[in-house]
């Protein structure tokens, strides 16, 4: 098995190209810039387009244009840039355009810092733009998944005609790990709705405006039906040593890697804890959490935030079991020892 040692951020672009992405529009920001660097390096070489947009606002609208034309297109940024892209994300969702957006989270609010954090959960998972829409959100926890989930993101985006966001933290973006790249795909997704400047697509219209209340409500209902289908079909997670676990820890991204180590340590000492790692943050793996609720004494949610995903866990648990929370922010990463203490306190 031959592998390449590569940063998660670069694996994103190689994965995107393998998945048939041929357009990248973005604006530089730490700690996501390597994604733009790799896109600038490789996309023009494979017959694709790379443009450093004048702003985050413009970059996402260029994605809107390229997606309207039926191309697999993407952009990437970090929290402050994602805030600016929310205008475009709302339009993309409203116009049912597929695209992939990568968010490599840093510390906030405001300028915050460039250290890893998970404070973008609410603005990404709950939809930071205006209106009734949802974006699918995938949360990789390794360089391999930065490649794999980016590829999956393009497929899901096309399948549901909806933006998909890959949400990672600064460490997952910056970390180098071995990645085994899959083979390149010839992607021929039929997009009869696209506007390509051809006779076949001349009658098409890409829009999110529905002036009459009846029509807009019908459109929003149609979107809602689509989102319900996504919730039914696309909940993804990794359950690690949850068998017989009395306490299940829940974390995504870099935190899930730390929890993995905590679980191994506990199991070695005969303490029955497990890890549930959501891979899709929306749709949130509610079904699995509901199932675990019957088995566990308590849940422990760990995030690099003051508590955002924990809200979704509580909604799934419905107060049937205690949901504990431990969070660090500002670029402080919860250590194995800190979490270990928390686990012992819960186990009693």
């Amino acid at each position: 098995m031959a592998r390449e040692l590569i940063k998660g951020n670069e694996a994103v672009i190689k994965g995107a190209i393998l998945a048939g992405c041929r357009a990248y529009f973005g604006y530089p920001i730490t700690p996501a810039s390597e994604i733009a660097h790799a896109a600038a390096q490789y996309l023009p070489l494979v017959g694709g387009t790379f443009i450093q947009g004048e702003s985050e606002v413009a970059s996402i609208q260029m994605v809107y244009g390229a997606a309207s034309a039926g191309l697999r297109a993407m952009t990437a940024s970090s929290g402050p840039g994602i805030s600016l892209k929310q205008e475009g994300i709302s339009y993309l969702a409203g116009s049912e355009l597929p695209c992939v957006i990568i968010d490599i989270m840093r510390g906030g609010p405001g300028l915050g810092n460039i250290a890893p954090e998970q404070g973008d959960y609410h603005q990404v998972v709950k939809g930071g733009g205006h209106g009734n829409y949802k974006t699918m959100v995938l949360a990789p926890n390794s360089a391999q998944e930065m490649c794999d989930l980016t590829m999956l993101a393009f497929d899901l985006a096309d399948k549901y005609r909806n933006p998909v966001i890959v949400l990672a933290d600064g460490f997952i973006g910056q970390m180098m790990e071995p990645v085994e790249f899959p083979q390149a795909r010839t992607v021929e997704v039929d997009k009869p709705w696209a506007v390509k400047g051809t006779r076949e697509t001349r009658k098409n219209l890409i829009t999110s405006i529905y002036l009459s209340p009846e029509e807009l409500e019908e459109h929003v209902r149609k979107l809602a039906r689509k989102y319900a289908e996504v919730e039914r079909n696309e909940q993804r997670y990794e359950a690690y040593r949850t068998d017989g676990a009395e306490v299940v820890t829940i974390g995504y991204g870099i935190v899930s890697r730390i929890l993995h180590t905590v679980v191994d340590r506990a199991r070695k000492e005969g303490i029955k804890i497990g890890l549930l790692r959501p891979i899709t943050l929306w749709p949130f793996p509610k079904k699995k959490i509901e199932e675990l609720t019957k088995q566990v004494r308590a849940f422990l949610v760990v995030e690099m935030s003051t508590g955002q995903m924990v809200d979704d866990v509580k909604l799934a648990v419905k107060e049937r079991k205690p949901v504990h929370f431990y969070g660090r922010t500002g670029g402080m990463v919860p250590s194995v020892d800190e979490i270990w203490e928390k686990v012992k306190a819960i186990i009693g």
Partner: protein
Amino acid sequence: MSGKILKKADAFYDVYERKPGADKLTTHYCPGCGHGTLHKIIAEAIDDFGIKDRTIIISPVGCSVFAYYYFDCGNVQSAHGRAPAVATGLKRANPESIVISYQGDGDIAAIGGNNILQAANRGENITVIFVNNAIYGMTGGQMAPTTLLGQKTMTTPRGRNPHNEGYPLRLSELLSTLESPVYIERVALTDAKNVLKARKAVRKAIKCQIENKGFSMVEALSPCPSGWRATPVEARKWIEEKMMPYFKLGVYKDNTKGKEPYIPPKEEFTTSEIEKIIGIAATKGKEEVRIEPPAARYRNPAIKIAGFGGQGVLLLGEALAEGGMRAGYHVTWLPSYGPEMRGGTANCQVIISDDPIGSPLVSAPDVLIAMNRPSLDRFEPDVKKGGLIIFNSSLIDRRPQRADVEVIAIPATEIADNLGNTRVANMVVLGSYIAKTGILTKEAVISTFPIFIKRRDLIPLNEEAVQKGIDWVEG
């Protein structure tokens, strides 16, 4: 009068099915509005050039938000001000398409000011039709960037005051200072003579795009009788008397003759070519070098490497991680990142493990490699009992205080200087680490160099540096 003259342009739908309400034959524009005239000019140009199938019109926010009711061509609706960015994406995706961005004054010169400036400056091969009526029509008559001094609007109830709102913005003049745009003209939709000039300008702008020459824009001073609270006749007169003295008509830029057409290359690649281009084909099928495992106490090391920027700390870690991967181990490499790398201190954390790696963070290292004094001071207390500290004794004037760890003092900078390049001190240290622990062989390490060392001629020197480190430990 022949029937032909009365016929709608072919680029218009015969019946406006997308338009709500019972009347599907007339537009939603007010009597005397300039949009209708401009739409007709564009539609006729599309007909005459025979580009209906290729054309995509971007409807903006404003009264022309519903341009797609009328044009029988590809239609994309965009966010306020963003049409030039959307046009960029559409055109780059399909360079054969003819992309027309239709925008009002608030859209193009206020909220989308930077978008038009940058699209023009990139020389996007698109055509922009800019409708300047000195007011926000659809949102109810507020001030536009092009509102004239003294002009009363809903948001300048006492008239536009230069001390509060500045002066009307002349976009054609502004964009014509840029190098890239090929053709920019301002016209006015007033009398027959000026409408004829507008017709000529629009055709020239679209032709410019068809011929792949680059960015073109036509600014049309356009009547808004409703917004100006005037009759259609008064509105036309107002353009002539008030707007035209400030917004002078004319050609602001015309490089259509001198400009060479540029057609972006259209390339397609096979999947195996793509794998080769992005450098993943080379990694397929490469044999791994299994080496003897090190002594138990040196197995599965969590390593912290620290020094100041420029000492090659990150590279030392990369060589270890890459070598470890090739030897069949699980590895992670995690850097300190961002501006702190540029000039300040740098560190990275490497784990080489028999088993899959959970947390890649190294808070209590088994091995500390300290390239300078601040690194030793900062991380020495964290090293695990029974661990290993390797320090660069050329730059660190003290020994570690810990008595419960192994220590290697190596004058790495001095050894590197003697080799003629102070920058290979990192490789000297790397040599000492692999010699001490047996975690990797020299061959495993130097096999990684072609990946990290861009200048091929420096590879032998780096190999020599690794050997010097090995010699130091093995005596």
